[in-house]
Structures are given as C-alpha cells and as structure tokens.
C-alpha cells in the first residue's frame, strides 16, 4: 500500500485556515466530502467519531504530526487526506508541541489490516524529517502531491 493509494488528491487542504482541533478535523472531513468520498449526510457523524477518538488519547504523536482517524460505515474503502497548518495547531500532542502536518484516515468497519497498513505507511513517511519539513513548507496541493509521490518512491532523507 502506498500513500497515493488512499490519499484522495482533490481533498488535500493546503493551507488549513482552522486554528483549533475541531476546526482542523472539520476542514479535512469537508475536503473529503467535497471530493465525493461519502454522503453529505455522513459528514457530522464522521466528525463526531473522529473527535470522540481524540478524547481517548490525542493522535498528535509528536514531532509536529498527527493522524486523526476513525472507522465509519459511510466509506467502503480506506480513504485519507493531508492538511498543512503553516502556523501550527495545539492538538494535545504527546510531546506538547503544536501540529503542522495532519494525515486523516477513515476506514470501513471491518478492515483492521488495511488501517494498520495505512498507519505503517503514513508513519514511515512521517519519520523522515526531510519529508515533513518539505510538507510544512508546501503552499499548494500540487506540491503536496509531488512530495507524496517522492515519499512513495522511498526517496532518501
């Protein structure tokens, strides 16, 4: 599985305008909806599910990145999107630092293997400081896509 397999290109949000946790999640879910990934009627329920998951422990796993996610019956395959906040957002991260790069994942109900594969793939890419640094500088959706393609090809740090 490659990031470009599940990141919906037309849904990428660069730059985020939201400055808080709920706003970021709302903007990203809205990006996926606008790209036609689920019904309008599912938007609020998906946002609620992602926020509920955050209450169990922040998905801001340090080093300026977060991976908010949920399972939801409104999708029939795993979909994801990426967003960049140039100024950073307080996200209750494990290291207490703001988050600049967000990767949001929505999986179908009974596909834990796909979710783990996506987490593996996303976090391996996010371990690359060069990749994260370039993402943080990205000003356009096209630049993010270019970086994703580079990460999928396993470019050296």
């Amino acid at each position, binding site marked *: 599985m490659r990031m470009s397999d599940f990141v919906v290109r037309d849904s990428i949000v660069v730059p985020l305008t939201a400055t808080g946790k709920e706003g970021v999640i709302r903007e990203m879910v809205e990006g996926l909806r606008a790209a036609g990934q689920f019904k309008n009627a599912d938007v609020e329920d998906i946002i609620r599910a992602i926020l509920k998951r955050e209450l*169990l*422990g922040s*998905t801001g*796993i*340090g*080093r300026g*990145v977060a*991976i908010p*996610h949920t*399972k939801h019956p409104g999708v029939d395959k795993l979909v994801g999107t990426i967003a960049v906040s140039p100024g950073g957002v307080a996200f209750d991260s*494990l290291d207490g630092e703001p988050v600049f790069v967000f990767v949001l994942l929505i999986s179908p109900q009974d596909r*834990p*293997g796909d*979710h*783990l*594969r996506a*987490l*593996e793939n996303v*976090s*391996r890419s*996010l*371990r690359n400081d060069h990749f994260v640094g370039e993402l943080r500088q990205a000003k356009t959706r096209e630049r993010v896509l270019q970086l994703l393609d580079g990460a999928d090809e396993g470019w050296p740090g």
Partner: protein
Amino acid sequence: MSGEPLTKTVVITNPRGLHLRPATKFAQVAMGFQSNVQVVRQGEAFDGKSPLAMVSMFAPEGTELTIEVTGPDAREALDALVAVLEAPPPPEDEE
C-alpha cells in the same frame, strides 16, 4: 556498557493489532524508564521510545514482537512493557 539486553517475545492478541493507541501507550511507558528499549519484528528493530516508530511497525493480531531492554531499570521496564502488549483490548476497541 550496560551488558546484555533482557528480552521477551510477546504475541499480539488484539484483533485490531497494535494500532495507534497501544503503540503510543507502549512508547509513553518506555519513555518513563532510563533503559534503552527496542522492539524487533521479523528482524527489523524499532525504537520503543518513539511513538512514530512504534506506529510504523505493522503488527496485526498474531504478530510476534521481541522486546529488548538494556539499562539500569531493565527488569522493571520489561515487565511494564510486556504488560502493555498483553493487556486485553479496552471496550472502546470494539466500537
């Protein structure tokens, strides 16, 4: 140096595998100890104190992971970390 690592192999029993919450919990517990912590999955070693590294492991149900701990509080660290991996999934995992 600190000598040979203490090790223990654990099999993941959570039907959802080592997903983000248990993986980051493991790293947080590991960070509470002085010892060096590595987790080996099929010959690949991951830094047990890095949430990002732990999340990148891909360990579905049935995966064998070997925890290797080296340092002054290795025994306590190993016991605590084995407990994290062997803990039954919380009820919210089924939602």
